[in-house]
């Protein structure tokens, strides 16, 4: 009886399925690389700061499957990205498209750099102010000598 239980338990271990880990089989290496790049560039819509590749959430797993299936269907990277944007919005892009909403994001840093360069150039071009030479009077010189001496 004991052996029977052990045997049954042993056999049961084989029925454990590993459906959670994605084990997609790709036809060729290029598709696999494209898949890996896409899941890195697409943001998981449910989790704040994770891409599809890093997230364990069910929706991320579904979207990875969707990316895989779209690749299998022979869709281009652009088509797949558009597919996601159409359904989940620009939110899913880690590299947002250039639009009036994202101008600040795309051109802000360059603008700030430009302002910085202008300021630096302005400062450098300014002629150094000529120093007035101050001459001490005889009285002041004596006073200074006195102070130094007292020290």
């Amino acid at each position, binding site marked *: 009886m004991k052996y029977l239980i052990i045997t049954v338990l042993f056999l049961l271990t084989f029925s454990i399925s590993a459906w959670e880990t994605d084990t997609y089989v790709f036809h060729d290496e290029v598709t696999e690389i494209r898949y890996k790049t896409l899941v890195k560039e697409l943001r998981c*819509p*449910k989790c*704040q700061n994770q891409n599809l590749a890093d997230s364990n959430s*069910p*929706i991320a797993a*579904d*979207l990875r499957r*969707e990316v895989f299936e779209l690749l299998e269907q022979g869709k281009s990277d652009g088509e797949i990205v558009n597919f996601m*944007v*159409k*359904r*989940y*919005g*620009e*939110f899913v892009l880690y590299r947002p498209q250039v639009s009036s909403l994202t101008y600040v994001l795309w051109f802000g840093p360059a603008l700030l750099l430009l302002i910085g360069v202008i300021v630096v150039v302005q400062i450098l071009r300014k002629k150094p102010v000529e120093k007035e030479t101050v001459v001490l009077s005889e009285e002041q010189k004596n006073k200074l000598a006195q102070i130094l001496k007292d020290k």
Partner: protein
Amino acid sequence: MNKIIRFIPLILFVALGIILYRGLALNPQHMPSALVGQKMPEFVLTQLLKPKVMLTEKNLVGDIKLLNVWGTWCVYCKYEHPYLVDIAQSGRVALYGLNYKDDRDDAAQWLKDYQDPYRLSIFDPLGKLGIELGVTAAPETFVIDSKGFIRMKHVGPIDGKVWQDKFLPLIETLEKELKGVSS
């Protein structure tokens, strides 16, 4: 002139402070739905309680339709359930369910145990229609107008306050639109 320049950093700092402070109050989970204003996507899926009946978007009839994404695994679906029953009974909208990534038997049992507020539920075990709709998790509720356009997407459970603040104004607008068309 020089004095003004001296104050520029302070002004910039205060401006940045205000912007960042306002940012604290924003909800980072909120994302504008890409589907509002779009037509309800096409689909072919079975009916939850009648596995042999195939449903398409044409089976969702009614002037104002609510499509509620739910699952037995979803905690907040239970929370919003009594509100959905009330909404269905009010008869103002046609309430449909999208059983999302669930087990058919479990879901049927759930509807038996509680109460089935839906005219019918679409069974979407793989979340395919969910992806078409940009669903991230349950519960989510879509408001679809008489022409089949999605007018609103609500993420999270519905309760009295959400219904009052978010749904009712839109439903009133839709009812007015309908009257405008018929008269």
